[in-house]
């Protein structure tokens, strides 16, 4: 009996708002414990919520980016349960009327293209965090009330690979939309995975389990594989799957039960009496739509069709929004998209991958970077020199012009200047000159090297070669 997995996903994405969903506290990650807190987000009596309009705009944006239907009428419910990281003992969420309904995302996995249908996207508040220190649990409510969207798919996945492709693409869209920063390591994007197995071709789905709070793409892939294996073993041994909530231990790769259906909470959802429903006007929805930044799919088309980049290079640049933004800013200064793309893919990203550069904190501007490439493209600088200048820019933060001036790196157009340098090299190496003239032509390479070293790339190698040859032979 071949078993076939069916998987659905709930993705929680923290929105990039300045303040929290229902109060004016900072929504920034980090900070001292309980620094970003007021009576509202720490559960004191008498707090009255006030909806963050930006959060509403961002979820509508997400809806447009993912082809959802935007609800004109939307409202919030309270989800009630006790837990020390939830100071009000209820989470404001959306049950009946989420902001976004339906939608879908096209993914590519295993050489096939398919569309994952979305069920809904709703807007809710995040819970706080518990830090377990020396046998005690300390509550930190900085994250309490941070706006969160929950993107719920239909059970359309049938492999871990598909899920991973979906999460990668979703993350990219949220980042490009300035909706969520996608920092999974900080928990700003995390997934719950629902998995069931059934015999291949069966109409009926098997009993499902849910793995909570996966916060890296790697963990998502591993957890799904581990759970499929666990369920397969059980079913093949004739045992039943228990509907339960699970946790994935990243360190050991183990699936650990949290609670079964029997002790599941009854959340007693009901309309939040302090938050009136919101009615969005067509005009407002349209304004939100127009504010949607260029998404990766559209950028890819622009790179390939307008900039004539190879799709492979375009995809590499688009992979990180900061790189793509940097690239677009550089192209705006120096209109040579192809050489700039090459420079980024071949040189800049190598430095990034080697850990020598950080896209989040480059010491130079896209304009400086573009200037350097312009010098090469205009024949003022030897192409081989640009990587050295780039390194120097990374180290010193100096402008390429200054670096070339100080290092005398500009291409010498005047052959007299090149000749002068070569004369110096010949004078300094009389022995090699003699050897050459005595027929030991292989020392030519040595002299060529010495000359290049002195010239620091400021002359085309062919020119250097011609002058050197004529000097050695002609005299």
């Amino acid at each position, binding site marked *: 009996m071949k078993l076939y997995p069916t998987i659905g996903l709930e993705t929680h994405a923290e929105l990039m708002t300045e303040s929290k969903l229902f109060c004016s506290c900072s929504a920034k990650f980090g900070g001292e414990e309980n620094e970003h807190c007021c009576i509202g987000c720490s559960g*004191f*009596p*008498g707090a009255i919520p006030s909806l963050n309009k930006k959060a509403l705009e961002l979820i509508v944006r997400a809806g447009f980016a993912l082809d959802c239907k935007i609800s004109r009428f939307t409202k919030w419910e309270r989800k009630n349960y006790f837990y020390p990281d939830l100071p009000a003992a209820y989470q404001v969420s959306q049950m009946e009327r989420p902001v976004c309904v339906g939608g879908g995302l096209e993914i590519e996995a295993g050489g096939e293209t398919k569309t994952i249908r979305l069920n809904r996207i709703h807007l809710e508040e995040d819970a706080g965090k518990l830090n377990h220190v020396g046998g005690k649990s300390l*509550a930190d409510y900085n994250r309490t009330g941070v706006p969160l969207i929950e993107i719920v798919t239909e059970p359309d996945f049938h492999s871990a690979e598909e899920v991973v492709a979906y999460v990668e693409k979703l993350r990219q869209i949220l980042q490009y939309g300035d909706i969520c920063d996608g920092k999974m390591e900080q928990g700003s994007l995390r997934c719950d995975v629902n998995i069931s197995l059934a015999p291949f071709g069966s109409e009926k789905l098997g009993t499902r389990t849910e793995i909570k709070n996966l916060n890296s793409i790697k963990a998502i892939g591993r957890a799904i594989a581990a759970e499929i294996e666990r369920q397969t073993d059980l079913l093949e041994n004739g045992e039943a799957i228990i509907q339960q909530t699970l946790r994935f231990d990243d360190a050991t790769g183990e699936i650990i039960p949290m609670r079964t259906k029997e002790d599941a909470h009854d959340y007693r*959802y*009901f309309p939040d*009496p302090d938050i009136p429903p919101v009615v969005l006007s067509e005009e407002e929805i349209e304004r939100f739509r127009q504010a949607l930044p260029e998404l990766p799919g559209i950028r890819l088309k622009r790179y390939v069709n307008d900039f004539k980049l190879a799709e492979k290079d375009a995809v590499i640049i688009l992979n990180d929004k900061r790189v793509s933004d940097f690239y677009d800013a550089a192209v705006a200064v120096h209109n040579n998209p192809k050489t700039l793309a090459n420079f980024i893919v071949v040189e800049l990203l190598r430095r990034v991958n080697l850990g020598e550069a950080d896209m989040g904190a480059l010491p130079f501007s896209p304009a400086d970077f573009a200037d350097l490439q312009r010098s090469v493209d205009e024949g003022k600088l030897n192409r081989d020199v640009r990587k050295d200048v780039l390194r120097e820019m990374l180290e010193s933060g100096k402008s390429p012009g200054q670096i070339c001036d100080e290092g005398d790196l500009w291409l010498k157009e005047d052959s007299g200047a090149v000749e002068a340098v070569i004369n110096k090299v010949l004078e300094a190496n009389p022995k090699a000159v003699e050897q050459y003239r005595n027929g030991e032509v292989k020392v030519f390479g040595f002299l060529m090297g010495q000359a290049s070293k002195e010239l620091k790339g400021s002359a085309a190698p062919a020119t250097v070669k011609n002058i050197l040859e004529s000097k050695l032979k002609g005299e």
Partner: protein
Amino acid sequence: MDLTKLSLKQLNTALSERQISVKEVVGDYLERAKQSDLNAYITLTEETALQSAQTAQKLFDSGESTALTGIPCSIKDNICTAEIKTTNGSKMLENFVPFYDADLIRTLKSQGFVMLGKTNMDEFAMGNSNRTSYFGNVRNPHDRERVSGGSSGGSAAAVAADLCCYSIGTDTGGSIRQPAAYCGITGLKPTYGRISRTGVTAFAGSFDTVGPLAKTAEDCAIIMEALTGEKSYASKIGNGIKGMKIALIKELFTENVDVNVRESVSQTLDFLRSQGAQVEKVSLPALDYAAPAYFTLASAEGVSALSRFDGVKYGLRGEGATYDERLRDSRTRGLGEEVKRRIMLGNFVLSGENMNTYFRKGLAIRQQITREFNALLNDYDVAVSPTSSRSAFSLDEPGDFVKIYSSTLYTVPMNLAGLPCVSTPGVNSVKFDKPYMPIGVSLTGRKFDEATILQVADCIERGRNR
């Protein structure tokens, strides 16, 4: 001159004309409050009051005083006051000292108010006799063996017994009006949303309102103007009511209403007719379901609002090895019987299928009542009804909660519909109840039209004082 007998308006005049000083009037009130055996206050804030009195006097001296400057008041103990205990009448918050002021306290502070203390109340405002307070019963100033009403029982008793000039209370299902009626004073539940609830402990967010309890309708109007910054509430005080169309709500004037109360309401209506008003009996059929709908919805909201009291952040810290054990202990010991009953009720109506069977039905009834009430007020200026089916009952009366819940029929419709409603003693009520106990008449108005109901309440007051 006994300063504690003066109305807010009279006191303000006396202070403005320098006939008396703030210190004198605050001193007199504090003296009375300290000697009182009514248990109206949970916390007396003598020191703060004397400091505020100095600040207030300076405002008079510099000509920056307002209507409330230097007037001694009390604040219900579910309204947060910075650095001053705010117990909500509960053991859970027996030692809870907020670090913040409610919005309305800030507003009052900016006008040089003087707070004498925090008043007793039913625990978390759940109750209508003030007998659910962890801090004990409040006695009715007119008969110490009777209840003060609730949940703002301490506020009403304090005003009635001249232990403060006015008080700020809250009204979720009648908590300002019913104790005002039992204690023989005027209490206004404003339109839902009219006064900020920020810093006021939530019971049921879609019902909760904040409002004044005072000696006269005009005082209520003055307090509303101070709290809202809008000069319209007192605009109709003293105007005649000739030609006004008044509806008597049929469903709230049945055989279930005590004969003395009915007589008082009738006499009041006769008086209003004599002043030129036109009175007709009008039916609001959906009111038959008002009490069950209210208890369904308000208890559900209450469960959620009170869940934050888990002993983790503040409040009674439970003992136990695990979070669950500590949570259970904290709430078992910290919350009283009535609060627990409503938590059970609220959880019941929200659990599983009951959400559809009860809660949604409650929402539908609420909508129907709101529609019917608004339609009535399209045709009439004011709707009249008794505030309670009877006058204050004995402190010893057994707490039959089904009976108690049903008895809220007279006040909850206005909360369900979010309408403003003032309770004021009916004319001649003294003739009907022996020994004398006050009887309250309720006047309900259109949304945000507190001015008209206060005008009628003022008119009744004049009839009373003839």
